[in-house]
Structure formats: C-alpha cells, structure tokens
C-alpha cells in the first residue's frame, strides 16, 4: 500500500480502490462476452458515441447560424435607417470625445445571450480603457451596463463603479419607444457631465469594431460653446419661440441621447448576430474536422480488431489441421 501511495503522490493520479475494482469488473465482463462468442471492438463504441455527439453539435451550430442570418437581415435594415437620426446632431454639435469633464458615465452596450464570439469582451475592454483615460484628480467615472454578458465581466473588478444594470432588453423586437423609456430612466437616475456610449458598430457581417459616442450634458455644451470652435457656432442660429438657448440645449441633449442610444443598441444587436453567425460557422467547421479525424480512428480500430480476430481464427484452424 505504501508504494501505491507514493505513486499517487508522484504522478498525481487518483487511483482509488473503488476504481480498481470497477476496472477489474469491466475486464471480466469483456472476457465473458468474448467467451460467449460476441464480437467486442476495443474502444470503438466509445468512438462511435463521440462521433454521434459531434454530429449532433454540428447540426445544432449550423441551425443557429441560419437563425442568426435570418434575424440579421431584419435588424440590418432597421439599423441603417436609424443612422439618420444622429447624423444631424453630429453635424450640428460635433462629437465631444476629447472634451474633458469631471463626471463621466460609461454606458456599455452588450448582449444578453452568449455564443456570439468576442464582441462583449471587446466592449468591456474599451470601457475599462476609457475609465483609465478619463481618470484623474477630482474626476470620477461610473458604469451603466446594458446586457447580462457585459455585467458579468464588469462585476468582477469594477463592482463599486456600477450605477445601473439593464437586462431583458431584447425580449421584444427593438423599437425606439423602449430605448426612449430606458434613456429617460438613465437620465433620471444618473448624474453626469458627459455620457460615453460604448458599442460595436456594424460595418459588415465580419467587421464590427467597438465605437464610442459622446453626449455632453447641456451645461457642458454651453461652456464649450463659449469657448468657441464648432459649438461656438451655435450662437449663429436664431432661436424661435419663447425658449432660451439653455432650454433648447437641454431638449437637444436629451433627444440626442435617446437617438444615439437607439442607434447604439441596434448596431450592437446587428454586430451580435453577425458575430454569432461567424462563431457558429467556425464551430461547425471544427466539428466537421473533428468528425473526419474520429472516422479515421474508428476505421483503423475496427480494421485492427477484425485483423486480430482473423489471425486468431486462422492460426486456430491451422493448429487443428497441422
């Protein structure tokens, strides 16, 4: 018993008395089956079971790819139409990416479901990098996370910086009203000087780079417009009605947030479907390769055991004759 324990410690193998009896029992069963005249292929049923399960997985991933492709077609038209919502804002106000503010809120858009490749990890990486970029004395950055996958990754090391998490967003097909209600919730619950929305922009089925859109709070826009530049041209516009410039800026800022968030959620949805398509495609391809290798091994084992049986029979027969 002492030598067995030493072996366990050196090789790290867990051989218990129970497994030894089970192994001995299995060998006994195999010998008995052979005596009964049944053919036993060494380990080939194991290979056959593996092949069956790999084939099933391949069918499932192919089906998932088709589903994602069909969903993508619908969402893609919506996304391309929604791009027209924020383009006038950027033409008017510019994108305030380089504006330095005290309170940043990073809104990370991610998916609820998995099996979509690496898009959620890239979004989370970009969000974390943004936090580092905007860190400094008297500055703070908070997170608002849309989607379960982003939440799971950010909870690991930035728990204390999360303000809100939102999930179950994709239960109904995405529409503007839902995103507007969500934007309203965020505006009511979170204080911010600038909102940075991180999402995966959909360029094509294989290209969805992470992008950051910035929305400045109306007070910051006023400050920046006094400083001149693109926003300084706002004073060139005449404001109709009885509203003041700050009221107009507040309305504009809220509406801009809602539009940009709508576009971000749509683009991220598109990218998620595209990423899922390519992930499931490579998964089916891998399953096919695995199946080929398993088939070769299976045939080899089968032929080897047939040859062994033949040799036994022939040598037995020649022994009888000779």
């Amino acid at each position, binding site marked *: 018993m002492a030598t067995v324990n030493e072996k366990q410690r050196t090789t790290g193998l867990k051989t218990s008395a129970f497994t030894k009896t089970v192994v001995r029992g299995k060998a006994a069963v195999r010998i008995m089956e052979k005596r009964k005249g049944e053919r036993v292929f060494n380990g080939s049923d194991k290979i056959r079971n593996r092949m069956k399960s790999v084939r099933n997985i391949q069918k499932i991933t192919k089906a998932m790819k088709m589903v994602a492709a069909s969903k993508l077609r619908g969402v893609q038209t919506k996304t391309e139409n929604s791009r027209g919502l924020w383009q006038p804002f950027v033409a008017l106000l510019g994108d305030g990416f380089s504006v330095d503010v005290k309170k940043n809120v990073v809104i990370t858009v991610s998916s609820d479901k998995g099996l979509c490749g690496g898009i959620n990890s890239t979004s989370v990486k970009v969000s974390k990098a943004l936090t580092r970029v905007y860190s400094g004395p008297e500055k703070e950055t908070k997170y608002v996370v849309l989607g379960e996958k982003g939440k799971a990754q950010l909870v690991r090391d930035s728990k204390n910086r999360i303000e809100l998490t939102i999930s179950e967003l994709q239960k109904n097909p995405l529409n503007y009203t839902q995103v507007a209600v969500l934007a309203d*919730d965020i505006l*009511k619950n979170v204080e911010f000087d600038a909102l940075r929305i991180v999402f995966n922009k959909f360029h094509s089925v294989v290209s969805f780079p992470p992008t950051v859109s910035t929305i400045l709070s109306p007070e910051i826009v006023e400050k920046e417009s006094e400083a001149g530049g693109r926003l300084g041209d706002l004073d060139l516009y005449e404001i109709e009605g009885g509203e003041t410039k700050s009221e107009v800026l507040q309305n504009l800022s809220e509406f801009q947030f809602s539009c940009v968030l709508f576009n971000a959620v749509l683009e991220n949805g598109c990218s998620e479907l595209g990423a899922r398509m390519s992930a499931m495609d490579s998964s089916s391809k891998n399953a096919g390769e695995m199946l080929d290798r398993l088939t070769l091994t299976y045939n080899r084992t089968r032929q080897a055991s047939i040859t062994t049986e033949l040799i036994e029979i022939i040598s037995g027969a020649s022994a009888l004759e000779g």
Partner: protein
Amino acid sequence: MATAAGSSSAAVPFWRAAGMTYITYSNICASLVRGCLKEPYKSEAASREKVHFAVTKWVSGKPEKPTIRSDSPED
C-alpha cells in the same frame, strides 16, 4: 407647441415643470399620433410601442432588487 410666453427667460414649458424630460414628452405625443391611425396600421404601430426591460440599481457594489418596466410605455 405650448411654450411659455417669452416674457421671462426663467419660465419653463409645462411638461418640464411637471418633471418630464423632453423624451417622455415626445413619446407621449408619438403614441397619441399612433392612436389616430386606422386599422390595420394601428395594430402594426402598436407592436412598435412595446416596452420590456429590467433595471437594477447598484448601491456601493451591491445590486438591489430589479424593477421590471414591462408595460405599455405610457403610464
């Protein structure tokens, strides 16, 4: 649009004074417009108004109980 009469620049529109944001205001107006449609376009538009998501507020690193916003958007 009922904006405040431009007498004093400190007057706010009625909906801002009631605590609504511009987004809520425009959503209410939009659903009023959708309600003016005739069938079958009305039910098609109603399907574009569905809202469902769950919000969880986090306080000092701990999530609180999530609130589900799953009603028709105006209430």
